[in-house]
């Protein structure tokens, strides 16, 4: 998808040269027009297994929104645990098998898990196939596994397919 982005930049520069407006607003208008042209031509990129690149940008944005939401919810959860008079938590470490193939995707997933409070990635297995996660409160590890899968791993899979 990188070359679609390159084409888009190229079209924006061509627009700047055509209209002789060498400003950031001229570049922005050219970029939007190039985006529209690329959207019309999105089936053209499907021949070599690609898709329209802005769809991926949109999915990454959705992943970001999910992450922010989870951050707020989990922080309030940890706040509730800290402020409660009796500390009723069951900490533990569990193994989470992931289906992501590349190293940077596993890193992204690990950072998202670590930044949401209550869970912390302790180690990655040697072949990047499993994460060892420490959870602050896990009465049932399957629930946490399902939540991680539903929130983060599916979104990363969709955004990077």
């Amino acid at each position: 998808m990188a070359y679609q982005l390159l084409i888009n930049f190229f079209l924006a520069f061509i627009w700047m040269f055509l209209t002789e407006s060498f400003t950031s607003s001229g570049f922005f208008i050219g970029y939007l027009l190039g985006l529209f042209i690329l959207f019309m031509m999105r089936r053209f990129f499907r021949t070599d297994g690609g898709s329209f690149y802005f769809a991926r940008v949109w999915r990454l944005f959705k992943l970001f929104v999910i992450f922010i939401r989870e951050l707020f919810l989990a922080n309030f959860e940890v706040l509730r645990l800290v402020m409660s008079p009796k500390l009723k938590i069951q900490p533990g470490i569990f193994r989470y098998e992931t289906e992501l193939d590349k190293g940077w995707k596993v890193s992204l997933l690990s950072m998202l898990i670590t930044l949401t409070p209550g869970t912390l990635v302790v180690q990655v297995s040697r072949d990047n196939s499993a994460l060892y996660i420490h959870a602050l409160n896990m009465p049932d590890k399957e629930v946490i596994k399902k939540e991680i899968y539903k929130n983060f791993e599916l979104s990363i899979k969709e955004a990077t397919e």
Partner: protein
Amino acid sequence: MKRKSKPVNDVILQTAAIIIFFIIVIFSIDLFFAGHYSPGGGFIGGLMTSSALVLLLLAFDSQTLKTVLPIDYRLMTATGLLIALGTSLHSIFWGRPFLTHAYDKFHLPLLGEQTLHTAIAFDLGVYLVVIGVTMTIIQTIGESE
């Protein structure tokens, strides 16, 4: 490239280090050029660049860094000293005292009116010396078993 000595998978550290390395390097270049009117300069820019290299050394091993960047840091130090000496000496040929700097307005292609100053060359010498010395110290300590 995995470490042989430690059977630990540090994929998160390596992925983050590669991304952060570029950010630190571009920030160090900005510091280097900011030195004339605002805080910054050759010394702090060189230290920042070598800190980016040290981050790569932490994430990978020294052999990997040698294959990626085949630079002899002692030569780098010598080059930096030569550049600094040359920019200090050039004023002697114009009948001025040692270390007198010159500046002038130039009309550069694509960049327009720019003021060029010989202090930037002196700063480049300082920059190269700082990187060379820091990396020489760290590599010598790291490789002495």
